[in-house]
């Protein structure tokens, strides 16, 4: 059963990453696409808490770092998404109760995640852009994620509930 669940999660993560590089490139805004992997990690944090989200964030981030066409130093998205997953899990109590809060949380997580990624690039000297361009990228990606969150959060919550361990059995 656990194997089935992790397989389902892996498929979900793979699909998010492939969709954002293949499907969304047709409607990208100046090349910026919605960060589906990040939204998935935030929804996982809302559904299951920070520990689960941090582990999922590490896995999704590492896949984002290694899957083609990525060409940056591996581990940078992993680091960003681990922290995003953990932080989102810490404040999830509010987001569980209201969908509005969940959308806001996705926006905040998108800002923190992309900023952390840009920051690690600046520290490592890997793909650093001019500061105004960096801010533009971050703003566009936050807007993208905010726009998709109202549709994706309920859908992903439902999907994650399907692959959730039998919690009802525990009462």
């Amino acid at each position, binding site marked *: 059963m656990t194997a089935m669940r992790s397989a389902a999660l892996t498929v979900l993560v*793979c699909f998010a990453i*492939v969709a954002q*590089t*293949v*499907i969304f490139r*047709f409607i*990208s*805004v*100046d*090349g*910026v*696409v919605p*960060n589906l992997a990040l939204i998935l990690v935030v929804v996982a944090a809302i559904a*299951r*808490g*920070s*520990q689960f989200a*941090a*582990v999922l*964030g*590490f896995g999704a981030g*590492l*896949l*984002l*770092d*290694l*899957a*083609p*066409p*990525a*060409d*940056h*130093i*591996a*581990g*940078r998205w*992993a*680091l960003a998404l*681990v*922290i995003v997953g*953990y932080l989102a*899990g810490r404040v999830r109590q509010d987001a569980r109760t209201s969908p509005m809060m969940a959308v806001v949380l996705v926006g905040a997580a998108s800002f923190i995640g992309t900023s952390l*990624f*840009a920051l690690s*690039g600046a520290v*490592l000297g890997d*793909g*650093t*852009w*001019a500061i105004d*361009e*960096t801010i*533009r*990228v*971050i703003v566009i990606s936050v807007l993208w994620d905010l726009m998709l969150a109202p549709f994706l959060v309920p859908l992903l919550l439902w999907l994650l509930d399907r692959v959730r*361990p*039998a*919690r009802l*059995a*525990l009462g």
Partner: protein
Amino acid sequence: MQRRFGRRISGQRPADPSRRVLGLLVLAALTVITLDARTGADSPLNPVRSAVGSVVGPLEDVTNEVTQPFADATGFLRTNKSLRGDIATLSAENSRLRGEMATEPLDRQRLAELDGLTRTANETGYSLVAARVIAMGPVQSFSRTVTIDAGTSSGIKADMTVLNNDGLVGRVVRTTRSTATVLLIIDRSSVVGGRLSTNMEIGFLRGRGTLGDRGRLDLDLVDNAVEPSRDDSVVTWGSKNGVPYVAGIPIGRVESVVSTPRQSSRVAVIKPFVDFTALDVVGVVVPKGTHGNRAVISQGAVR
């Protein structure tokens, strides 16, 4: 295991284990970053990269195949106004073509001459493997890369030149069996040797990594005394054995020249010929006599 899980969800357990997990995962991420950043070309992560690539690459290919009709379908949703615009353009083109028909015999003569020229050009020309762009790296990764649907099985290796009808696109940085990753010339880490076509002056073009159709390159000329003129076109000057760039591929046009007081040199801003937001079919320059599962286009013929 399940008991622990249940308790954590109900929020009664203190946050200690989750903090420990966070610490471990951050440490793991930092280890991966250090390993990859320190070792550079022979990174222990490269085998993992190609393993992941050989799984995700075909996945991207399939997804692209499945979604292509939907992407093409956006063309149907066009406004009346744009269709009217199309009619105007087409009728203008029609009358131009009618005019051209009148001068056809002369053109045929010219064409024969040109044909001879191209034949000579083809003798020294390059062999190409055609490929399609199937995935684009998200810009929030602050790099400009794409995946193409041809890999080592078509004879493609790292450090090969990639171009399309308009000009230079980039170079291959990594390959799997069926896909390859291309670093676009507008990426910040891309450096191309370029030559001004009017005065043959050479220089280096660096990508600015800017967004969308504002993608520009900076040209630093080796000789500071030379002033590049506006609208002058820039071509590659090529490297030894054509690795990573072959010579004579058009790159772009000088848009403006900026001189900074701090540095004594002038920087020319180059607008690339290629539209990097709408990349589709590209050609990869391969050595002559390459055999793969894909047709090699050379000397004007497909073999």
